[in-house]
């Protein structure tokens, strides 16, 4: 069954990316264009996260070789204060002899940066849309071009 789904995610992600791109290309409304750009961007995140998945893996947060709330002999410490100090236990690492498998953390880091930068560019685009609306009283591209022509805002006619 998993053979059949080996490339399934990529195909769906490509369909989603092209849907977002189609919204950007086909719509004449500036806010709808930005929504399409956002869909396009999120679909790209899906592609990266798909690549970083390791089957049978778990989130890239190292497990500690230590059971909290129990002492070395496995006795519960709950009768007294539980002291948990960070970093004093060995982590369970992937490698020879280890049965723990983690997913790849690098695509996650790249996409974390991309999400935040995407919101920054989206806010700039929306601010530009609001400014365009102040001048043209519309956010439809066709009407903006018509107003450009009628009121000679591009300075091409005398």
């Amino acid at each position: 069954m998993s053979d059949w789904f080996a490339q399934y995610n990529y195909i769906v992600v490509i369909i989603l990316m092209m849907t977002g791109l189609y919204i950007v290309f086909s719509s004449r409304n500036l806010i709808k264009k930005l929504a399409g750009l956002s869909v396009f961007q999120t679909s790209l995140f899906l592609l990266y996260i798909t690549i970083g998945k390791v089957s049978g893996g778990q989130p890239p947060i190292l497990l500690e070789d230590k059971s909290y709330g129990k002492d070395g002999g496995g006795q519960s410490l709950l009768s007294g204060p539980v002291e948990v100090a960070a970093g004093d236990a060995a982590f369970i690492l992937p490698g020879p002899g280890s049965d723990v498998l983690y997913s790849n953390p690098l695509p996650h880091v790249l996409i974390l940066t991309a999400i935040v930068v995407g919101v920054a560019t989206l806010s700039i685009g929306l601010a530009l849309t609001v400014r365009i609306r102040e001048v043209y009283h519309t956010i439809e591209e066709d009407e903006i071009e018509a107003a450009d022509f009628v009121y000679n805002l591009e300075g091409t006619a005398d």
Partner: protein
Amino acid sequence: MSGIMTAASEPSFVVPVLLLDISLLALLVVVAFAIVRMRSLFAIVMLQGVYSLVSAAWFVSLDAVDVAFTEAAVGAGVSTVLMLSAMLLADRKSTPVPMRRQLGALTVVIIAGAAMLYAVGDMPAFGDPNSPANSYVGMDFMAKTAEEIKIPNVVTAVLASYRGYDTFGEVVVIFSAGLGVLLLLGLNGNAGRWEAKPNGQVIKDRTAPSASQADAPQSDQPEMEAST
């Protein structure tokens, strides 16, 4: 690194994981196609938030927990709020585009999608632990974080330490974006209501349905506080 290969040489997924993956992706396709068909901007913005939220759930099922909560908070939360406030300052409806004007976009999208589908056969299998992306530098971070950074969350270690300059550049981008929005909209609360007169002439509104709403008092603030 050889131990990773012996630990799981065959991509093996249990059926519930695959079913979750398939149903979430199908939901994403439905939402994306709905955005294409919608004309109400409010519905489009809300569906874009739904799209981000569903993809955040999908990230959790693919072990990307840090990405998932960032996407849920920033993608589904902040950017939806930003788009809603911009929509309130701009317009509520989008005019439909006739089909013959969409044919060019459709052609470009189909050609680009076909080219990418042609390349899909070269991509590694889903969940392959021996794929190039999963073999080298990512797993080195995994192995060295414990002794070099000494924190359990490897994503945080890579983000803040190994790729710290990248994160610094990201912060510079956010600062520039906040500065740009402030310069574009101003701090006096008049965003969207200021009457611009390019070359001394007033552009008369002919068709925008929300023209009368621009004069009505609006309670919402300009959108800048959320993104900075």
